């Protein structure tokens, strides 16, 4: 038995409307790789931010090698020997590797000596990296090495890694694992955040599993089957789907061979996505954030256009049409980001009602806005969806998240869409509002609308979907009926263990 390095005791952190961490306790021993496992929104990020001094816990305590540990800032955490490699790198492209490392240090040594140190560390730990290269020319894996070496120069006792393999090729993953094993042999502990089960089984000594902010169990990954971990991660029980799949009508929406390059550096490329949604059917799409959800929505809303045949609405090609034209034909969408995407923050609810309702609600007369009609449409949305607000002339940003979400969903639902695509319909919304939104989606489907619901909340998808598919690194798994789906099957579809050997080649 090795000694305890970090002890976390009933850490609790609440944000308005959500408890991110609820009395989480666990221990990390010296020289072990400890996995922190959980779905998106399970509270992993909040937990490590508290350990790294970015967030202050509401209650609970931590101790590092027996001494009380309450870092007030990341630099205090670093001074105590805790380092962190973030998922998104903070590097300047125009600077060399050594200059970037120097920028992250409190008292950087002269560049020449630093470069020598970087070479030394990179050789010791098997992380090939030339300190004089321009960061802009490095691959994602090499950039990660810069961040790791930046941490190693501080000689940490505990290194936190936030989904480190999400940007790596399989070969780079091997190199990284080799480095991590060498570090642990020297007694450095690693807190490893991931949701890739196979990876954790290969690397980690212990795992703590979080679900909805609670520590729901610990295990030894090498001895635990992946499906058992998936079960703990997802939750042992799903609410039964509301009723059996209703008699679905003809195909309303069809996507075939949708491939898109990543729209930005942090975007995800879509690869050969195909699906169909029938009238009156809800197709749920699960998956961890950042696996192509935003891109899929954009390709359906018309913000990204493709060849016409790729997206078909009742058999008619619409892939080449923009958002306004698709809306006119009955394909409506509600994006995840409420402020700034689904709604304009500084505009009133009346103006935001016009934002998507102009055409279908006949709010225009020869190009001129009928503000009276727009206002009454906004009032209808407010009344029918129980949006708590002083009135339609309130700015969107003044509404709470749940109320604005009800407005955004209501605005589309009341336009009687033929096909409705929604991303994260109840994200950050209180329970009552979430239930109302889900009911609205079910009612809409009962009226014959085809619904594509993208969500990271599996309970939600199991509750409302007729069929279920998962997005993983821009690929969509084949859709399967939700009713017969077991917990472990869902976990594996999402986690990437499914068919991934083929995909990685």
């Amino acid at each position: 038995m090795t000694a305890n390095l970090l002890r976390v005791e009933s850490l609790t952190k609440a944000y308005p409307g959500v408890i991110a961490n609820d009395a989480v306790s666990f221990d990390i021993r010296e020289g072990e790789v400890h996995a922190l496992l959980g779905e998106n929104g399970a509270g992993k990020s909040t937990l490590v931010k508290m350990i790294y001094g970015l967030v202050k816990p509401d209650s609970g305590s931590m101790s590092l090698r027996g001494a009380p540990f309450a870092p007030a800032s990341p630099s205090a955490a670093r001074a105590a020997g805790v380092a962190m490699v973030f998922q998104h790198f903070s590097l300047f492209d125009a600077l060399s590797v050594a200059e970037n490392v120097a920028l992250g240090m409190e008292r950087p040594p002269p560049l020449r000596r630093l470069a020598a140190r970087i070479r030394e560390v990179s050789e010791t730990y098997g992380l090939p990296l030339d300190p004089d290269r321009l960061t802009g020319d490095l691959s994602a894996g090499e950039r990660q090495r810069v961040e790791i070496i930046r941490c190693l120069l501080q000689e940490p006792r505990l290194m936190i890694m936030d989904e480190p393999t999400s940007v790596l090729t399989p070969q780079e993953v091997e190199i990284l694992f080799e480095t991590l094993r060498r570090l642990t042999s020297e007694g450095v502990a690693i807190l490893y955040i991931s949701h890739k089960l196979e990876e954790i089984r290969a690397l980690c000594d212990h795992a703590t599993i979080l679900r909805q902010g609670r520590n729901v169990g610990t295990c030894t990954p090498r001895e635990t089957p992946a499906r058992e971990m998936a079960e703990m991660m997802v939750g042992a029980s799903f609410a039964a789907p509301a009723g059996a799949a209703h008699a679905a009508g003809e195909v309303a929406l069809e996507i075939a061979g949708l491939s898109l390059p990543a729209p930005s550096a942090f975007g995800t490329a879509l690869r050969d996505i195909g699906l169909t949604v029938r009238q009156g059917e809800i197709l749920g799409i699960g998956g961890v954030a950042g696996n192509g959800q935003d891109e899929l929505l954009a390709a359906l809303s018309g913000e990204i256009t493709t060849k016409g045949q790729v997206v078909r609405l009742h058999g008619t090609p619409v892939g080449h049409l923009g958002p306004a034209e698709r809306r006119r034909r009955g394909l409506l969408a509600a994006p995840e980001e409420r402020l700034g995407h689904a709604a304009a923050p500084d505009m009133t609810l009346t103006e935001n009602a016009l934002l998507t309702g102009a055409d279908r609600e006949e709010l225009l007369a020869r190009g001129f806005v009928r503000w009276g009609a727009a206002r009454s449409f906004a009032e209808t949305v407010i009344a029918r969806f129980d949006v708590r607000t002083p009135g339609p002339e309130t700015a969107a940003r003044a509404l709470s998240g749940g109320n604005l979400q009800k407005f955004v969903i209501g605005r589309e639902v009341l336009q009687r869409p033929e096909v409705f695509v929604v991303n994260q319909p109840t994200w950050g919304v209180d329970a009552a509002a979430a239930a109302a939104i889900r009911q609205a989606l079910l009612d809409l489907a009962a009226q014959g609308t085809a619904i594509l619901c993208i969500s990271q909340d599996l309970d939600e998808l199991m509750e409302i979907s007729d069929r279920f598919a998962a997005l993983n690194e821009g690929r969509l798994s084949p859709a399967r009926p939700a009713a017969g789906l077991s917990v472990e099957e869902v976990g594996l579809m999402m986690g990437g263990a499914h068919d991934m050997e083929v995909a990685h080649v």
Partner: protein
Amino acid sequence: MLRLEKRPQPSRVWTWATPPLAVMITMIAGGALFAALGKDPAEAIATIFWKPLFGEFAFYYRPQLLIKAAPLILIAIGLSLGFRAGVWNIGAEGQYIAGALTGAGVGLAFYPLDSWVVFPLMVLAGALGGWAWAMIPALLKVRFGTNEILVSLMLVYVAEQLLAAMALGPMRNPDGRGFPGSRNLRDYPAAHNAEIISGTGMHWGVAAAVIAVILAYVLLSRHLLGFHIRLAGQAPRAARFSGVRPGRLVVICLGTSGALAGLAGMFEVAGPAGQVSIDFNVGYGFTAIIVAFLGRLHPVGIALAGILMALTYIGGEMAQSTLGLPAAAIQLFQGMLLFFLLAVDLLTNYRVRFRHREAA
């Protein structure tokens, strides 16, 4: 300790109260500046703001006010559409020159034909000239993603060279004994932008500015295009989601502001200036940027700001000649106006809280 607190929504009171407040702070700071220069601050301020309107020589200065305000307002209205949409046309000065050249070119080409069609054709040519000059940054941006701020600004200097070349070459007055500069359009009645009511300064450019203010107001508050312009500026992602095509908006906004700047140049060259000359442009295109922001990018605000700006110009000149204030001090004074406006603008979105430091 001072703290800034974000308001849940922009304050309507402060939206309208900040410009007058900025003018007042400018008067105080400017007064201090003039006092430091050894002038009587009250008199200097009065010379700038009061005497041109109500002083002894107001009969001369009042028409000047309209003559100077009209091009500022006309250009600023066009710029404000782009600024609202996040399209930054900084080169109105160049489009102003281009419009003056094409407008005057048409007039000079018809010389000495005496027909009523000459002036309307010049108006059309002026608008087209400014529009075409603005299309250069617009198309480059849409096609190649170039920065419209840089391209439109650079084109100002190109336009200035073109102006000099024209004044010295093709447009030079054949009867001008070799002096640079074109024929004076004031001596060619069919092309002259004369005062509509004599002695008031009210020429066709003033009429155009009034029409532009009204149309811009209707566009922004009632038309879908105006809504899209505002949406694109405030929430570009939401605009794309709504169906706004960003490229189309760039072309429309740059085109409109170019056409209006071109019109302003044409009215100026055919009226108050009279001829194409090397030093024809005096910076209206740049000052209009200040006017647009001073007027909160709102058409009515711009009309008021244009008049205020014209007043500081005329009053500033008066203060230079009667009080001997240096020109730099007047420019500083005008710069303060924009500075303070942007500074107090904070109050629209933030609330200032005074808070005592809590014991640690």
